[in-house]
């Protein structure tokens, strides 16, 4: 078969594009989970950020303002998730499920109010691609990395900084302690609830950036349910990446490739897209069972009640 059709420059470019929202959301989910909260609500958080980014761009004319709105939206939902699960001991999984439904309903509700259709918004100005002339000189890698939106470069930066933060700073060490053993962290004088609140909010904000990528870089409008399961794929990538930033990034690249492959195959019509779409979920289960390298979550998904 024409393997060249599947492995060429445009395919790799598509991989990087489709990996970006996953990288943000997987890193976001990882921070939440490192703080001891499983963020099932990534999907709804991404979707809401995607919507508010378009909303703000529509009324301000500036995708920069849109980006900011998307970040704030992620932060707001993250703060609600953090407050209810950490301070009020609400069940993480149920609140996350609620946030997903809220994200779907709320974005469609306002979309219909503004644009008269719950299916899609109008087209807005997207984030401009950036061009670095020094990258032109590098063969292969240059054309692959050049001319992307700022979010792609931010996602690279995010995973590198996350890795440094988590494993080479005292705050990272404390965060890991809070997730893995809140009791000991508390005894050691760490403000467990504060750490949880901050990092669940921060993680959700990162996921929001993934949503903004979908609506201001991948497409230049909002469409109903446009995240189409990427929040859950990101959770899968986080697990496949064993809750580490580098792992999250590599798994996102792999699942991003699967996404790009799925789109390509759909146009070529050689394999049912559903089979490729379910692969990330299947791989995740295999990873959890230890068939593809054992993975153990850093926390047990229970609220920490201070004695």
């Amino acid at each position, binding site marked *: 078969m024409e393997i060249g059709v599947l492995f060429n420059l445009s395919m790799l470019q598509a991989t990087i594009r489709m990996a970006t929202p996953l990288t943000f959301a997987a890193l976001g989910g990882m921070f939440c989970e490192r703080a001891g909260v499983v963020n099932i609500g990534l999907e709804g958080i991404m979707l809401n950020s995607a919507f508010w980014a378009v909303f703000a761009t529509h009324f301000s004319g500036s995708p920069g303002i849109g980006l900011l709105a998307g970040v704030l939206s992620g932060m707001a939902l993250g703060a609600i998730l953090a407050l209810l699960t950490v301070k009020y001991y609400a069940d993480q999984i149920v609140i996350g499920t609620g946030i997903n439904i809220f994200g779907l309903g*709320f974005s469609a509700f306002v979309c219909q109010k503004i644009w008269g259709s719950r299916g899609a918004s109008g087209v807005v100005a997207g984030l401009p691609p950036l061009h670095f002339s020094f990258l032109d000189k590098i063969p292969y890698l240059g054309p692959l990395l050049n001319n992307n939106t700022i979010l792609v470069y931010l996602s690279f930066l995010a995973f590198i900084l996350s890795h440094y933060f988590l494993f080479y700073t005292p705050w990272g060490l404390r965060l890991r302690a809070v997730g893995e053993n809140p009791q000991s962290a508390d005894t050691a004088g760490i403000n467990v609830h504060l750490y949880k609140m901050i990092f669940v909010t921060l993680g959700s904000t990162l996921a929001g950036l993934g949503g903004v990528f979908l609506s201001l870089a991948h497409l230049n409008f909002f469409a109903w349910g446009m995240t189409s399961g990427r929040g859950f794929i990101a959770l899968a990538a986080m697990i496949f990446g064993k809750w580490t930033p580098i792992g999250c990034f590599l798994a996102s690249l792999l699942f991003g490739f699967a996404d790009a492959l799925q789109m390509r195959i759909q146009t070529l019509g050689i394999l049912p897209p559903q089979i490729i779409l379910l692969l990330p979920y299947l791989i995740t289960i295999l990873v959890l069972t230890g068939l593809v390298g054992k993975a153990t979550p850093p926390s047990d998904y229970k609220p920490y009640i201070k004695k």
Partner: protein
Amino acid sequence: MKLLSKKSLSSFSILPEIIAILLAFLISALILLFSGYSPLVAFSALFRGAFGSKNAWGQTLTQATPILFTALAFLLTFRTGIFNIGVEGQFLMGAIASALAGIYFSGLPAPLHIALSLLAGGVMGALWGLIPALLKAYLGVHEVITTMMMSYIASYLTSYLVNYPFKAPGWVAQTEPVAKSALLPKILPPTQLSLSFIIALFFSFLVSFFLFHTYLGFQVRAVGLNPEAAENKGIAIKNRQILAFLLSGFIAGIGGGGEILGVHGRFVDGFSPGYGWDGIAVGLVGKLHPGGCILASILFGMLRAGGMTMTRVTKVPLDLSLIIQSLVIILVAAPYFIKTVIMRRKDL
């Protein structure tokens, strides 16, 4: 999770749940006001659409039926301390199995064909539930992620099946219609309400009887309430949890089958708007009791059925129903928030 189940079992008061539901409507009213709609007009249309006539009741109960099945499935596992969020997958797998049994078994008398098709759905659902059950029991894999992933696999797998091998000719991704002998009778024409609703009520009774009046049900609850004490008493935790998963999958699968044989008459791709996820919310709002689940499923059925009327009459977007629903879920899941912030109780 433990906190939630202990709290909801220790007090029989449903005041926090009622406050949560009222608060959800209040916040939704504010969202409506901000968007320039009249909450009064919208809510009255919603209630009229859900309860205003015989047909409205039929629609509400039709929507409540699959949610009641999935809620029962969810609560059975939750009672043994398992967080099974894969009910949607069990529901879908049951639906496809029932659809195929309805199409390909032929020459059977109607009651037998219906029973066999529903049974096929139940068995398929149970098998789908068995996978995360075994992974948990023998490999110690946490069920939250596996059941969630299994739901998505089921969603894409059924979508593949009705888009390729079992696709009926035409543009729509759906199977052939099931044989007439497999269709569940409608019980309130001209609405879609079918015998599936009665079956759901019957299962509510069965689950209630099982949990509260059989020794095995007592063991199942004991495992959920205090696994260590249960183990000391000689109850095999793993077996009881696997049993709960099997029963849960069976009920969800029957629910999926009931939806196919009672409402759609064939498997249509994407026919479930997330009944399995609704079941989680309904199970919790219903305080993990089958009786409570009946009431809570009618509330969610009301939001779905009444929402359509509301949109037609008042132009308020249909998604208001989803917003109310999500707020009910979030607020009901935060009893401690309701008790300390809204009810100002300090004694918790």
